[in-house]
C-alpha cells in the first residue's frame, strides 16, 4: 500500500468546554480524493483549518509527506493549497495581479507562463484584467481555484468549491479536478453539501458527527452499511441525530 501523503492521528480541538474535533484519525493516499462529510458544526472546517496550520490542535498530530506540521510548517505548506467559498482575494487587484502575487508568495520562478497557463486552463481569459471586486461569484470561485492550482500542490483542500456555481460551471470544475488528479497524482480533501457531487468525486468518504468520525469507506459501502437508498439519506440521518443531541 502507498505511503499516505497526509496522516492525521487522534486530532482533537477544544474551544473551552466545546469539543469541535474529537480524536479524529485518517489518511489520504497519493492521488486519492477523500470526501469529508457532515452536518454544519460537525468539525469539517476546523479539521481543514488545523491541516492548514491556521488552528493549533489541542491534541494529536498531523503529518504530511512524512513531515510533522508542527515542526515543518513552511516545507509542508509550500506543497499544499486550498480553496473555499468562504475566502476572498484582494478586491482592488485584477485577477492577473492577484495570481502574480500568489506566484511570488510561493516562489514560482516562471510566473508569467504559469499564470497564463492557469488562466487558460480555467477559462478565465475574458476576465483576467477585471478588478476582483467586479467578479461574479462564479468567477470569484474560479479565481480561488486558480490560486490553489497555480502552486501545483501535492495536496489540495477544497471546502465547498462548487457551492456558488451554476450546474454547468460546477460540472466543468469537477471535470477539471478529476483531470488534474489523474494527470498529476494530486490528492484532494473535499467537502461539499452536494451529495451527488460527493458520490461522483470521492474515492473514499469520512462522515463526521459532533467532531467524531462515525463512518468511513466508499460511498457505496457507507450507503449499504446504513441500509439507505443514497448518500443524502445517510447525511440526513447523521444531521438529525446531531440536532437532537444538541
Amino acid at each position: 500500500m502507498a505511503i499516505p501523503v497526509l496522516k492525521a492521528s487522534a486530532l482533537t480541538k477544544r474551544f473551552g468546554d466545546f469539543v469541535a474535533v474529537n480524536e479524529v484519525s485518517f489518511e489520504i493516499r497519493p492521488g486519492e480524493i477523500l470526501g469529508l462529510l457532515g452536518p454544519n458544526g460537525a468539525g469539517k472546517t476546523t479539521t481543514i483549518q488545523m491541516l492548514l496550520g491556521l488552528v493549533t490542535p489541542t491534541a494529536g498530530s498531523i503529518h504530511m509527506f512524512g513531515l510533522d506540521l508542527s515542526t515543518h510548517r513552511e516545507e509542508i505548506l509550500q506543497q499544499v493549497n486550498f480553496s473555499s467559498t468562504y475566502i476572498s482575494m484582494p478586491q482592488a487587484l485584477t485577477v492577473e495581479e492577484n495570481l502574480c502575487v500568489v506566484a511570488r508568495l510561493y516562489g514560482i520562478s516562471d510566473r508569467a507562463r504559469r499564470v497564463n497557463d492557469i488562466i487558460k486552463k480555467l477559462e478565465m481569459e475574458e476576465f483576467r484584467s477585471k478588478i476582483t471586486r467586479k467578479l461574479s461569484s462564479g468567477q470569484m470561485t474560479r479565481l480561488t481555484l486558480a490560486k490553489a492550482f497555480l502552486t501545483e500542490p501535492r495536496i489540495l483542500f477544497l471546502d465547498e468549491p462548487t457551492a456558488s456555481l451554476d450546474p454547468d460551471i460546477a460540472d466543468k470544475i469537477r471535470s477539471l479536478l478529476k483531470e488534474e488528479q489523474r494527470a498529476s497524482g494530486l490528492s484532494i480533501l473535499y467537502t461539499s453539501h452536494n451529495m451527488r457531487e460527493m458520490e461522483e468525486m470521492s474515492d473514499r468518504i469520512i462522515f463526521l458527527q459532533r467532531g467524531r468520525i462515525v463512518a468511513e469507506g466508499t460511498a457505496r459501502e457507507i450507503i449499504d452499511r446504513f441500509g439507505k437508498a443514497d448518500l443524502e439519506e445517510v447525511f440526513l440521518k447523521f444531521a438529525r441525530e446531531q440536532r437532537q443531541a444538541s
Partner: protein
Amino acid sequence: MKLHRITALLVRHLYLYRRSLPRIMEIFYWPFLDLVIWGFITLYLARYQSQVPGFVTFFLGALILWDMLFRSQQGITIAFLEELWARNLMNLFASPLKPSEFLTATMAMSVMKVTVVSIVMAGSALLFYSYNILIVGVWLMPFVLNLVITGWIIGVFTTSLIMRFGQEAEVLAWSMVFLFQPISCVFYPMEVLPTWLQMIAWVNPAAHIFEGMRTVLSGGASPLGNLAWAVCLNGAFLVVVVAWFYRTVAYCKEHGLLVRVGE
C-alpha cells in the same frame, strides 16, 4: 418622516455601542486628547513666551516629524487591515509565509509611505511657508530613522491588538498613535509635563527625538544624548513588540481567532 424608521436607525447604532468598549472609548478619547495636547501647548507658550525663538519653526518641524512617525505606524497597521478587509488573511497564513516575513513586508511598505509623505510635506512647507526642514541638518536622518522605528513599534502593537480582538478594534489603527502624542512632547518640551507624566514620557523614544529637534533648532548643544536614548529605547521596545506579535499569532491560532478576525 416616520419616527419608527428614525428610531430603527438610532437603535441600530446604539446596539453597537452596547457591546463595544472601543466605540464607547472613542467618544471620550478625542476630546480628552485635544484637551491634553492643547493644554500643554498653551502652558508652554504662556511660560516661555519670551524665550521661544521663532516657535513657528518648532511647530512646523515638529509637525513634519510627527507625521513621519504617524505614517510609519499607518504603513504597518493599514497593510494588515487591507488583508483583513479583503478576507485574504487565510490565504496568507495558510501559505509558507512566516510572521517575520509578514512584518518585514509591512515595515518596508511603511518606509515607502514615509518617504513619499516626507517629500510632499517638506516640499509643501517650503512652498507655502518658506520653511526648510533641512535646517535640522545632519541630525535629520537619524531623527527620522528613529521616528520610523517608533512608528513600527506602535504599528506592530496595534496590529497585534486588532488580530487579537478583531474588527471591533479596527478604530485603534487611527487612534492608538495619538495616545502617544501627549507623551511624545511633539509641540512642547518634556519639562512642561507634570512630574509623573515626565517619567512616562522619558521611556518614550519619540520624546527624546523631539527634545533633540528642539535642541538643534534653538542652536543649543549636540542632541547626541537624546539620540542615544532613543536608539536604546527603540531597540528594546522593538524586540519586545515583535515577540508579542509572535505570541499573539500563536494565541490566535490556539483560539481559532486567525480565521475569524475579519468577521
